[in-house]
């Protein structure tokens, strides 16, 4: 298969980028989108040009490294897959494919299609953990957890932190990511202990980092490769309001409207 690629090229974080149009030839329809880019980069190198820089790691849809805004959709036209799981047979021979980096003030472009997603790490550092002390292994049945909660928690924990929610959102809001991280901890007894502090700290950090606000448009949910539901956002809002009203702790500042 042959394609015309329109790719965002940017030398470094400070440089002014622009779109370049390329031809790529001899692509197998069974190759993944990233493999197509590998072949394309080989072709560029053979011509003595700089290869296109993009993020990738596990290539099996579980690490959250790959990104790419393909033809107007994060992770391309398929639902519930990451870019590495997207196959070229999803496109027609001769198609023009526009590839852009995630666009968000909080995710600055480092080079070409690679963005800096440290903002997510900072949000996690603000509260996305439980402070479990070391000690003996607790008995498996010592803490009973309702099946529904375990399921909901597991669904939220499926978030791989790729940032597609931010990329898809018209406001570049990180609410779905933060909500997934808040939810998967607060639904379990181990996470309840710090739930109130956690939600306030993580929301405050999210706002500080320059993500937009949630207007409940639902684009994040539609584009999430792990199909995280916006029910989690409602759960986070519920917890956030409860924590703001009921929490004894005055130290945690910030947080939306």
């Amino acid at each position, binding site marked *: 298969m042959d394609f015309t690629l*329109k790719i*965002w090229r940017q030398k470094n974080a400070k440089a002014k980028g622009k*779109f370049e149009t390329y031809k790529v030839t001899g692509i197998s329809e069974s190759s993944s989108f990233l493999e197509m880019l590998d072949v394309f980069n080989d072709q560029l190198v053979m011509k003595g040009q700089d290869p296109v820089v993009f993020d990738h790691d596990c290539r099996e849809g579980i690490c959250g490294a790959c990104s790419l*805004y393909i*033809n*107007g*959709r*994060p992770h391309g036209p398929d639902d519930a897959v990451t870019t590495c799981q997207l196959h070229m047979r999803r496109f027609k021979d001769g198609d023009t494919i*526009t590839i*852009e980096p995630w*666009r*968000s*003030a*909080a995710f600055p472009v480092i080079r070409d299609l690679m963005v800096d997603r440290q903002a997510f790490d900072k949000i996690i550092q603000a509260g996305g953990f439980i402070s479990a002390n070391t000690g003996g292994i607790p008995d498996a049945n010592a803490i009973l957890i309702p099946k529904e909660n375990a399921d909901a928690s597991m669904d939220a924990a499926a978030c791989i932190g790729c940032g597609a929610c931010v990329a*898809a959102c*018209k*406001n*570049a*809001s990180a609410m779905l990511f933060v909500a997934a991280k808040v939810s998967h901890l607060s639904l379990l007894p181990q996470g309840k202990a710090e739930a109130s502090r956690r939600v306030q700290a993580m929301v405050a950090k999210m706002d500080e980092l*320059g*993500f*937009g*606000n*949630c*207007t*409940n*448009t*639902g*684009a994040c949910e*539609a*584009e999430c490769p792990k199909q995280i539901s*916006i*029910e989690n*956002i*409602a*759960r*986070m*809002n*519920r*917890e*956030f*309001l409860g924590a703001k009203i009921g929490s004894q702790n005055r130290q945690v500042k910030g947080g939306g*409207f």
Partner: protein
Amino acid sequence: MALAGLFLITFLVIHLAINLLLMSNDNGAAYMVAVEFMTTNPLIKVMEIFLFGGFAIHIIFGVILQVQNWMARPVRYKVEGFSHLSFFSKYMIHTGAIIFIFLCVHFFNFYFVKLGLVSPPEGLNKEDFYQMAVLLFANKFYAILYVVLMVFLGFHLHHAFQSAFQTLGLNHTKYTPFIKVVSTIYAILVPLGFASIPLFFMFIK
């Protein structure tokens, strides 16, 4: 934002209920009784302050949040808009701005007249709201503009109602589908109710 919005949503129902009295076949007698009550009752006077506060909070927060949202994506996409967004939610600031402009016109037509800041139309008393409304709707241009505006109000409300519940964290597998249905019905019925009044004056009366 959500709380102020929900407050305005309840206000709209009351406003509509009174406006519908315009259509009763008594040359505005019932409507004028309601107007009399709304302009003189001390409890309503207090609620009026809350109402203006609600509008102010909703508008100011709406603009601040929107500016933050625009700033959150300084470089836009070349190709965009393929994500499955709910359609009306994309244009809340735009429909909101249109409603705001109408709100200003509305103030000039009625509220400022009542306060004495704007002189009433010739030959009318400043409390003669029924005649003012009849006069306004007699203007075909205004009446059509009013009906079009109600369509935009419907667009705004369609997203607003159910979205407010989500913002407040009230999402539930049992009740959310119900709220969404109510939201759609509300967004159709209330603007339709308002729009029916100029249509009534144009075609029936």
